[in-house]
Structure formats: structure tokens, C-alpha cells
């Protein structure tokens, strides 16, 4: 019944080329924050703390313009193209800075600039007193500009420009406190892991261009049905490679937990709410290509499911307030990929939006807690903050309920709709893994919530927790409201307003021949979800809320060899280290030896040439210094003679 409403011919957008009105001005959305970046960076000494106003001003302007653009698209739905100057034009390759604005763009614009603005405001309080306060706002503006280029670009290469620039911003912000070696290493790891994904993304562009002769998104989407199944399969998997790096999916998720080295507002904005969702955006943007290869989509679904499960298991045994949230982010991104893989593109975007609300909120709340506890991050040294930090506590409660999937909070609707679609589209295994992941999510988030806020205080003596300043609590409240009602307002039923709004940009799955796993309908599936969440919350509540946690991690009820492996993150980092770093270093060292001894040696004729060189060098030493003036004069004379010959000819 609910599905029936979604059936019928899919609405199609008209494609309008527009240069005036608010669409005509949309280029200012990324350009204003970019200007903010340059200005703050150049004038950081002079601006000092005033840099925040400039940074926030740029974010406000970008948000305001985004709202205006959204208004236009809601009032007159269409795919708007805003032509801008060319970027790279050579041979048949012609790429411009043109903007593509449709329903999906609008959703992304509002999330990015909205959460972005809140994080800018929050940072005023959080970063106060930092020696590089101004530069922080410059980098935030750079990130905003980059992310906006990413979502506005009308071709894959401009999208890639934003894609790489968010990578640079992420590098700069993870390594913001670069004095710590570990932080600098985390920044580098993030950049390089993403570069691996970039190779896949670039090859995807090569393949798209070689096959379709264009990198233009609209053109690629239109031509998608002409792709052969093997090209479509390869293309989608290559795109997945790029998306998996940016959106922290198996096997390229390892950089994201380390990225928590960055200041907490950065974790909220970049490493939870926006940048890491770029892979989801990319795959949904190209969903008409995805539907050409159901095999590739199945792989995406399983990558998402495995990531959701693996990261949730790891999150259960993390003791760092941000690491739990980081693995949770990896896991939730896994759900978005499940959505994309099972053909629930719009549900994936819906979860992207609600996740931006509640995960952004959770990170900002974590920052508020760290702020109050003198940068304490160990969950075992928290607790008892319920009374001292009422706003942080209340908003965190909402976020906890939202991410756990308790109705009617935002996360319930979006996660449940993804799981329902997995079931109805015949992905039984993915559904079960996702359902089990939902139990785990409720479990680890309840553990987190209990350990941070409830019970008696466990923090060190001499620390006096206090509620954060208004610049930090106001963003918490805004996100709290959105996490509470976001789901209900946006898409309370399967074919709700957001679902219908996104219809024209979503790949058509009607030809994929999905059949449900079994006889269950949506109401039963919802009931099962709620039971799963109830089990997770109850178990964690029993395990942590009713126990004396003051003796530290030794009393953690989740123990045994498996827990040990979970705590050590399934040894994935160690395995990567062994394979890539150790082995790679060996290869590089061997090649370097070859270069010195063999390549150089062979070409120089090894022994003989070495001797000759030595002899010549000795002669040169004595003779050269004295004769250099002579040589120079002869040379000059020679060349001048040539030149004069030309002039007087």
C-alpha cells in the first residue's frame, strides 16, 4: 500500500539553462566562503579574533543563498543549469565550472550550509583562546567552499575539484594541531587513503569519457541506458572505489577514526555530517548509471552491510568519547550504502540528512563535554554530567534516541525505511545484517550515553564541569530540534514529502525486477525494527546503567576474546601496516638499492667510468676554476658573433 503510492511513471525534470535570478547568482554560494578563506588567511594577524565574524559572515551568506535557491527549486522543480566559464578545454574534452541545481543539490546545499553555519558559530566558543583561532575559520571556510563546489558541479571533473579540495581541507583540519606527531600522521593517512580512492574515481572518469565522450553529469545520466552491462558494472565499481574512500567504507574506512585528531567541530562538520557523505551523494547523483548494473549494486549493498556491522562491533568496545562516534559514523554510512545498493536511493539521502542532524549534534555535544572536562576523552572518566550540563544532556538525549532508532525521532524513520527497502527488494541477508547492526547501534549508543551523562561523576578531582557558552549550546539546541522532528517532518511515511521531492533525480528501479524476501509488509517490519532497538537499549541499560563504573574498563561487561578483537579493531590497521607500510618500504628500499648500484652503475660503465670520472674530476678541480672566465668569455663571444651576424645581415 505504501509502495503503491510510489509507483506510476517517475516524474522527469525539465532541463533549464538559466543565467538570471537567484540561480544566476548561485555561483556566489561557493565563491563567498572561498573569498572568506583567502581574506582571513591573508589578514589573519590583523583580524585575530575578528576572523570569526568574517568566517561566519561567509557561512551566513552561503546559507541564505542556498535557502533562496531551494525556494526556487521547490516552487518550480526542474534541473537548472547555470553556465559559467570553461575550466579545461582540450580536444574533445570540454569542462566548465557550470552549476547543476536540482532537488538533490538543494538537499545537499541546505545540509552543508546549515550544519556548516552551526559549526562555525559553535567554533567561536570551542576554539576560543587557540593560538591559530583565525586560521581555523579560514580552513572552515575553505571546507565550505570545497564542499559546495562538490555538490554544485555539473560535471564529474568539477565535482572532483570539490572532492579533492574537501580532502585538502580535511587534511589541514585533522592536522590543525600539527605539533602532535600522531595528529599530523592522521592527517596524512586521511589524505593518502583518499588518494587511493581517487585513482578509482579518476579511472571511472576515463572510462566514462572513453565510452560516452563526456564528463557532463546530465549527459552521462541520459546516456546511461546505452552502456553495456560490463561497462556499467566496471564503471559503478570504480565509482564505488572513490566513494568508499571518501565515505569510509570497507576497505578504505581506516582513516576516519584517526581523523578524530582534528578539533571536535571539524569532526562534527566534516567527518560526520557532510564530507563523508560525499560518496553517498556521488552514487545517488549517478543512480541512473547504477541501475544499469544490479550486480554492482548488490556489491555496494554488501559493502555497506559489512561496514555497518564491522564498525558497530568495533564501536561497542571503544573507550574514547569521539572514537565511539567515529565508528558509529562509519557504521551509519554503511546504512546509507545499503540504501544505495538495494535501490533505496532516496532513503539513503534521507538517512544522510537525519544523520547530519543527530551525528553532528552528538559530536558537538561530545565537544561540549570535553570542553567542560578539560579535554578529557575517556568515557570511563566521565559520568554525572546530567545535572551540570542540562542543555548538552537534553540535546544528547534526543540525539541518542534518534541514532538508536527510537520513534518518532529522526533516525528511526530513515534507518527503518532503508531496512524495509532491503527486505522488499529481496536482499534478505543484507536486511538481517542491517537489523543486527541496529541492535548493536542501540547498544553502543546507550553505552555511550550512560557512560557520559548518568551515574556518579568519575572525572578527575580538580575538574569542574560546567555548561558551555551560548555560542556552543545554541547550535546544540537547533540540531536537537532537527533530530527530534526532522524525520517526522521530512518523510514520516515511505512516500513522504522528501521522497516525492527527490523522485526526478533518483535512478529508475522499476526494471530491476525486485521481489520481496518474504510475506512481511511494512508495518510488521517496523515492529521488528522497534523490537530490535528495544533489545539493544535494554541490554546496554542493564549492562551499564546499573553497574558501578568507577573501577574502569575492567568491569566492562562485554569481554572475552571476541571483545578483545573488537577493541583492537579486528587488527585491520595492523594488517594494513604489515602489508602496505612494511612490505612497501621493503620494495622501495630494494628499488633504491637497484637505482644506486645497478641502474647508475650499468649506465656509467661501473668501474671504468668511475675511474675515468674520478680522474677527470681531479683534473677539472685544478683547471676549471682558473679557466672558467676564459670559457665564459669565449662562450659569450661565440654567441654574440652569431647574434651580430643576424642583426647585420
Amino acid at each position: 500500500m505504501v509502495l503503491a503510492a510510489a509507483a506510476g511513471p517517475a516524474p522527469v525534470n525539465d532541463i533549464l539553462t538559466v543565467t538570471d535570478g537567484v540561480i544566476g547568482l548561485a555561483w556566489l554560494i561557493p565563491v563567498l566562503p572561498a573569498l572568506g578563506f583567502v581574506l582571513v588567511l591573508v589578514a589573519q594577524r590583523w583580524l585575530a579574533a575578528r576572523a570569526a565574524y568574517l568566517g561566519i559572515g561567509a557561512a551566513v551568506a552561503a546559507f541564505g543563498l542556498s535557502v533562496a535557491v531551494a525556494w526556487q527549486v521547490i516552487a518550480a522543480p526542474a534541473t537548472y543549469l547555470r553556465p559559467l566559464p570553461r575550466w579545461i578545454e582540450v580536444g574533445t574534452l570540454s569542462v566548465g565550472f557550470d552549476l547543476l541545481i536540482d532537488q538533490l543539490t538543494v538537499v545537499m546545499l541546505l545540509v552543508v550550509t546549515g550544519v556548516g553555519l552551526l559549526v562555525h558559530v559553535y567554533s567561536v566558543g570551542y576554539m576560543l583562546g587557540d593560538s591559530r583561532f583565525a586560521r581555523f575559520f579560514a580552513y572552515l571556510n575553505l571546507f565550505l567552499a570545497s564542499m559546495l563546489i562538490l555538490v554544485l558541479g555539473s560535471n564529474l571533473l568539477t565535482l572532483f575539484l570539490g572532492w579533492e579540495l574537501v580532502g585538502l581541507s580535511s587534511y589541514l583540519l585533522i592536522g590543525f594541531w600539527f605539533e602532535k606527531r600522531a595528529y599530523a600522521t592522521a592527517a596524512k593517512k586521511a589524505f593518502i587513503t583518499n588518494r587511493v580512492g581517487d585513482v578509482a574515481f579518476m579511472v571511472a572518469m576515463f572510462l566514462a569519457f572513453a565510452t560516452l565522450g563526456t564528463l557532463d553529469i546530465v549527459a552521462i545520466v541520459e546516456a546511461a541506458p546505452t552502456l553495456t552491462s560490463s561497462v556499467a558494472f566496471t564503471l559503478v565499481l570504480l565509482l564505488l572505489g572513490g566513494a568508499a574512500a571518501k565515505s569510509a567504507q570497507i576497505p578504505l574506512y581506516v582513516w576516519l577514526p584517526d581523523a578524530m585528531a582534528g578539533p571536535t567541530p571539524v569532526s562534527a562538520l566534516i567527518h560526520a555530517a557532510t564530507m563523508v557523505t560525499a560518496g553517498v551523494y556521488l552514487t545517488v547523483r549517478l543512480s541512473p548509471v547504477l541501475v544499469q548494473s544490479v550486480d554492482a549494486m548488490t556489491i555496494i549493498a554488501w559493502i555497506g552491510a559489512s561496514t555497518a556491522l564491522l564498525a558497530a562491533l568495533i564501536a561497542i568496545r571503544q573507550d574514547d568519547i569521539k572514537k565511539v562516534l567515529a565508528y558509529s559514523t562509519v557504521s551509519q554510512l554503511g546504512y546509507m550504502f545499503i540504501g544505495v545498493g538495494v535501490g533505496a536511493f532516496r532513503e539513503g539521502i534521507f538517512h544522510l540528512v537525519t544523520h547530519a542532524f543527530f551525528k553532528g549534534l552528538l559530536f558537538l555535544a561530545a565537544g561540549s563535554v570535553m570542553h567542560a572536562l578539560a579535554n578529557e576523552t575517556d568515557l570511563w572518566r566521565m559520568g554525572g554530567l546530567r545535572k551540570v550540563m542540562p542543555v548538552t544532556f537534553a540535546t544528547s538525549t534526543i540525539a541518542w534516541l534518534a541514532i538508536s532508532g527510537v520513534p518518532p525521532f529522526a533516525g528511526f524513520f530513515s534507518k527503518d525505511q532503508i531496512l524495509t527497502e532491503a527486505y522488499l527488494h529481496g536482499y534478505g541477508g543484507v536486511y538481517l545484517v542491517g537489523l543486527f547492526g541496529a541492535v548493536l547501534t542501540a547498544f553502543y549508543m546507550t553505552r555511550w550515553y550512560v557512560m557520559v551523562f548518568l551515574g556518579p561523576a568519575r572525572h578527575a578531582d580538580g575538574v569542574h564541569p560546567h555548561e558551555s557558552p551560548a555560542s556552543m549550546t545554541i547550535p546544540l539546541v537547533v540540531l536537537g530540534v532537527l533530530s527530534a522532528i526532522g524525520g517526522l517532518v521530512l518523510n514520516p511515511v515511505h512516500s513522504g514529502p522528501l521522497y516525492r521531492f527527490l523522485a526526478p533525480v533518483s535512478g529508475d528501479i522499476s526494471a530491476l525486477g525486485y521481489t520481496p524476501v518474504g510475506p512481511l509488509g511494512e508495518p510488521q517490519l517496523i515492529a521488528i525494527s522497534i523490537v530490535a532497538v528495544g533489545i539493544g537499549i535494554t541490554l546496554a541499560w542493564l549492562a551499564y546503567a546499573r553497574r558501578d563504573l568507577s573501577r574502569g574498563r575492567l568491569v566492562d561487561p562485554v569481554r572475552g576474546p571476541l571483545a578483545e578483537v573488537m577493541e583492537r579493531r579486528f587488527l585491520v590497521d595492523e594488517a594494513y601496516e604489515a602489508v602496505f607500510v612494511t612490505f612497501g618500504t621493503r620494495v622501495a628500499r630494494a628499488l633504491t638499492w637497484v637505482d644506486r648500484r645497478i641502474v647508475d652503475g650499468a649506465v656509467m660503465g661501473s668501474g671504468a667510468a668511475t675511474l675515468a670520472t674520478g680522474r677527470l674530476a681531479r683534473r677539472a678541480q685544478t683547471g676549471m676554476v682558473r679557466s672558467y672566465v676564459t670559457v665564459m668569455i669565449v662562450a659569450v663571444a661565440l654567441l654574440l658573433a652569431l647574434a651580430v651576424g643576424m642583426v647585420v645581415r
Partner: protein
Amino acid sequence: MGPITLTIVTPLIGALLLALAPRARERDVRALGLGVSLATFASSLWLLSRFDVANPDLQLAESATWIPSIGARLAFAVDGVSLVLILLTTFLMPLILVASWRSVQDRFVGYTAAFLVLQAAVIGVFATTDLLLFYVLFEFTLVPMYLIIGIWGGAGRRAAAVKFFLYTLAGGLLMLVGILYVHAQTGTFDYLAIRDAVVSGRLVLSAAQQTWLFAAFLVAFAVKVPLFPVHTWLPDAHTEAPTGGSVFLAGVLLKMGTFGLLRYAMPLFPDATIAFAPWLIGISVVGVLYGAIVALMQSDVKRLVAYSSVSHMGFVVLGTFALNDIATTAAVVQMVNHGLSTGALFLLIGFLYERRHTRMIADFGGLAKQVPVMAGLWLVVSMSSLALPGLNGFVGEFPILLGTFATNRAAAILAAFGAVLAALYLLWAYQRIFHGPLETEANRTTPDLTRREIVVMAPLIVLIVAIGLYPGPLFDLVGPSVDRVLAEVAAVAGGVR
């Protein structure tokens, strides 16, 4: 006197003035060197203004008799490719000289004169249309460069200078044999006449002849590029060369190799070009990856950048022999980009060396806190070198790979991994030098860039960003000339994609 002649003669006049006044005060030498190099740059801009972008052929020809008995002439003309390389040369020269004001205390007169002579010779290499003159100038560039390394270089400069000299001289000699053979076949050194004869079919060289001739030219140019496996002179030369020498070497001299391939080896021996292309693509890919991997293991930052040049020039040769308008045009653009990025990187390394008298990466650490301006510029240049979109390296590298993919998928995919490796070695070096705690006294007292040094870097940074975001004019300048070369190869040999 036409613009080409003026651009060549101006630095020579400067060198002559310096040669006449070897005891001039340093201040005057500085002023003269800067003035002359700026005048040369202005002259090259005049050349640009006279150039007809739409015309793909060599233009603005000037010529005079030189050795009438064998028909060798002082003949010059430029197309888009030679023009951008001339502009790169004249643009870098004032920066090199100003950057050397403090670092070169000893015999600055000779240093300046050597660079001006070198500049004139290199512009001649890019502009001449006489095969014999090309050879003479191509080899002559060795002399001033040899002196620059051998006199103003580091501790191991003698051996490095000799290695550089012998290595490249040996390569060039084979080319001379090739040029003389062509002369014997055609009776002229006039490149335009020979090229037209080849294109029109009046001169038909057999496959075997072409193979040998192409190989002879290739050896000379491959050493210069330098292409794997004849690259090992480069790290030594860079390590021992003074900063200015490294900038000029990486920025301009290496391009004589890729320029020569495009200008001479390809149009004159089209069948051999087609036959050699897959092999050269293979060698280039090996060079891209090999140079990058070996760069990872370097402890001297200058050696690291030298090996990165081997990798990056591999991209240029890859694009050139993809024989595809996108890749080959981008390869020329990438010559310019590599000159700017690597030149900028060597300047920064030089500035750091002047402060610390060491280039060992392990001696540094935490400098970003102490020298934020240098750290920021270093990061921009590193990002340019690792081809971050929005900066110049990307607009060359991406179309090279995109175009190559059409010709040879495996090569494009393998070379794309060069982008990962570039991030590895550049960010590794950056982290070790600039990140982490400020632990040693030497690091804690390193001063940031001076105003003069910032002025030297500024034009490079501006171009790195400008080309990255608006490369159109550069592509427009070289596109028609490259298309013409490809069309010439195709006309004779066919099979160009």
C-alpha cells in the same frame, strides 16, 4: 631586429657587459642582472604579442647566414610549443637571479653571466629551425650549466658536474650523427624544408633508416628528460647544483628533451614514432612509478624532488607518445607546470638550506610553527606537484591520463597510481619538515621567509593558482601546434588516434 633575436640577444649583451666589468660591485651586478632578465622577459612578451595563436605553424621567422659552405643558417621561428617554453625560461630567470642574491656570495659576476649565457642558448634551442644550430646550442647549454654546478655547487660538485657533462654530451653525439645523416639525405639543415619534404612524401626514409635515426635522437633527448633508466645523473646534479642551477635545470633544461622529441623526432620520423610509441609509453609508466618509489626513500629533500622530477617527466613523455590531441597537448602544458612547481620547490629548498646549511629531512621538524609563511607556500607547491585539482599540476596530469586511456588503458591506470605515490613522498617530507614538535634549537630559531624571498615566490604561486583555475590561454597557445605535429605524423604514418 625581430622579437626572437631581441629575446636572445638581450641576455647576451648583459653577459658581455658583465664580462667587461668582472670587478663590478655586487650591488651593480645584481641590478644589471635583474634589469637584463626583466628586459628579456619583456622582450618575450613582445614576442607573444606578435604571435598569431590561430596559426599552427612556425612563425615570426628570422634568419641570417652562418656557415654558407654547408648551408647552415642562423634561422629562428616559433610555434606555440617553443613560445611557451621560451616564456617559461624568461619568466624564471629574474626569479632565479633575485633568489641567488644572498646565497651566492662568491663571484656573483660570473654566476650572473653564466645564467644569462645559458638563458640565451636555451631560448636559441627552442627557437631555432636549423638542425645544426639546434645541435650546437643543445650541447652548448652544457657549458654554462657545467660551470654553475662545478663552481657554485655543493661539496660533491666536481664529480656531479662531470657526470652531468659526460652523460648528456654522450647522448648528444649520437644525435649529431643522426643530423649529419639527414643532411646527407637532403642536403640541408633547414628543419622546415626537411619536414615539408617528409610530409609531402618527397623524402621517404625506410623503416630501418627511421628506426636508427629516431633512436639516435631519442638517446639524446631521453638523457635530457631524463627518462628511466638514463636518469641517474639528475639526482647527483640537483643535489650538488646551487639553488638557481636546480631551478633552471628542472624548470627549463629538462624540457629541451621533451621539446626535442616533439619538435624533431616525431615529425621527421613518423613511422618510427608509431613503432616506438608503445615502448616509450611503457618506459614512461615505469619511470612514473619508479621515480616516485625511489623518491620515497630519499633522506635528502633535494634528491627527493629530483626523483619526483623523473616521475613527473615520465607523465610528460607518456602524454607525448599517447599520440592523442588531449594527452599530447596536455603533455606540453605539463612541461610548463612541472617547470613552475618543481622550480618553486627548489627555491623553497634553497631558502631553507640558506638558513640551516642542511637538506637532510631528519634535521628538521615542527617548522610550521616557526616559519608559517614558508610552510604555507611549501604546502601549496607540494599540492601543485601532487596534482591537486584547482592548481596547475592537475590540469596537465588529468588530460594526459584521460587521453592516454584512449590509447592504452593499462598505461593510464598504472600511471594514475603515480598520484598516490606523489602524495606519499611529498606529504611525508612535508610532515617530517614542518609538522611535529619543535625539538631542536636550530629548528626553534629558523627565521621565516624575508620580503625578498616572498617576492620571488609570489609570481610562481600566482601562476600555479591561475593556471590551475584558468588554463584556457595556455591550452589555446599550444593546442594548434601540437595538433599540427600529430597531423604530420598521421599524414605519413597513419594510425594516430
